[in-house]
């Protein structure tokens, strides 16, 4: 990491990268290239307001409303905008439906493309080399590391996000959930199930996870 700025090491408890980022930010503010209020807003939005609960609401609606699901599969960007989820890194949305015959999962082998308005910022593993290298070449062994084992006759489709399209996976609705409403169903939808590296939780899984 040649840009950690070793000049700043002496006499400081702060790491070189912390000092370098501080210097960079204060210079950009001093030059009036960035507004400190905008920086705080950006962090707040992605740390507290945008995240996988957004995508879960979309999935739960699709589970409850067949007409909505068909529209979502045909024109995801418009349908997702109806929830107020839109904009940066979600301009061109596509939704792929998992069934008992086809399992879809998403990767970006070249960088870290990810549908921010519905899932928030990507987790470290999604951006790191092992997942990006292996998801396209050995999806079944990658899924096994997430605890997902699929029958051999289930076709796996891996979507490599090489352009500006952003993919959201519509996971299968868990069994024995007919009595649940949309909000209760949304609680079963995990981030990983919408990347395709996981399955939606069963009501029993959820009870175990929250007990």
């Amino acid at each position, binding site marked *: 990491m040649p840009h950690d700025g070793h000049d700043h090491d002496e006499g400081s408890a702060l790491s070189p990268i912390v000092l370098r980022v501080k210097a960079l930010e204060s210079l950009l503010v001093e030059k009036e290239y960035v507004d400190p209020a905008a920086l705080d807003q950006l962090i707040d939005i992605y740390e507290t307001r945008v995240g996988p609960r957004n995508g879960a609401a979309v999935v739960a609606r699709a589970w409850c409303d067949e007409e909505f699901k068909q529209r979502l599969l045909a024109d995801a960007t418009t349908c997702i905008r109806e929830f107020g989820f839109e904009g940066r890194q979600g301009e061109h949305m596509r939704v792929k439906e998992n069934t008992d015959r086809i399992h879809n999962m998403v990767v970006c082998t070249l960088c870290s493309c990810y549908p921010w308005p519905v899932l928030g910022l990507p987790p470290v593993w999604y951006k790191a080399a*092992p997942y990006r290298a292996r998801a396209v*070449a050995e999806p079944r062994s990658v899924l096994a590391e*997430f605890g997902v084992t699929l029958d051999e006759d289930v*076709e796996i489709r891996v979507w490599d996000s090489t*352009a500006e399209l952003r993919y959201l996976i519509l996971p299968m609705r868990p069994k024995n959930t007919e009595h649940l409403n949309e909000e209760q169903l949304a609680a079963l939808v995990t981030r990983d199930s919408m990347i395709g590296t996981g399955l939606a939780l069963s009501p029993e899984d959820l009870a175990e996870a929250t007990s």
Partner: protein
Amino acid sequence: MNGGQDLGGKHGLGPVNPENNEPVFHAEWEKRVFAVTLAMGATGEWNIDASRHARENRHPADYIKASYYQVWLYGLEVLLRERDLMREDELKTGIAQKTRPVINSMHGDQVADILNAGSSYEREIPQPARFAVGDRVTARNHNPKTHTRLPGYARNRTGVIATINGVFVFPDTNSRSLGENPQYCYSVRFEAEELWGSGTHQNSCVYLDMWESYLEPA
């Protein structure tokens, strides 16, 4: 470019290691890098393809070893230096020198609107798409040292057009300020055996989004 970023199919990188209950950021400096990168992106001084190239255009060992926000920091510094918005000695001394103003700057009260508006990469062109759904196509074998979104593992491989996605800005030229050169972009399905060789087919396939000039009829 055939750099450290072109990771599809690489070996020896270890397990995926998902983290339970992972926080959005792992350190305060990551938040700051994220925010200054987005705020500088809104200045209009560069486009998204140029910023991707700035991050990948380095020694592959450094790229792979760096954490993602270290990659972002590196890329931002490159873009600032290239456009003479920040000089290395300013970062070393912390003392700002006189540099030109940026095209735009994003103010705090504009952030939500700018994020919600996003930035569409879809364009319109008069000519029809060259390929139809179901056509067999072969990805070009090209090895530009500049930015491309055609991964190494798909080059010279044959697949089938699954969807015509529309017309999109072409990153290979846009990243170099050579114009948007909008082209049809297709979802192309490649069988695992075609990509990785016989005996590797685990009933799986890969779909890539590919611009028209990446493809030839098979």
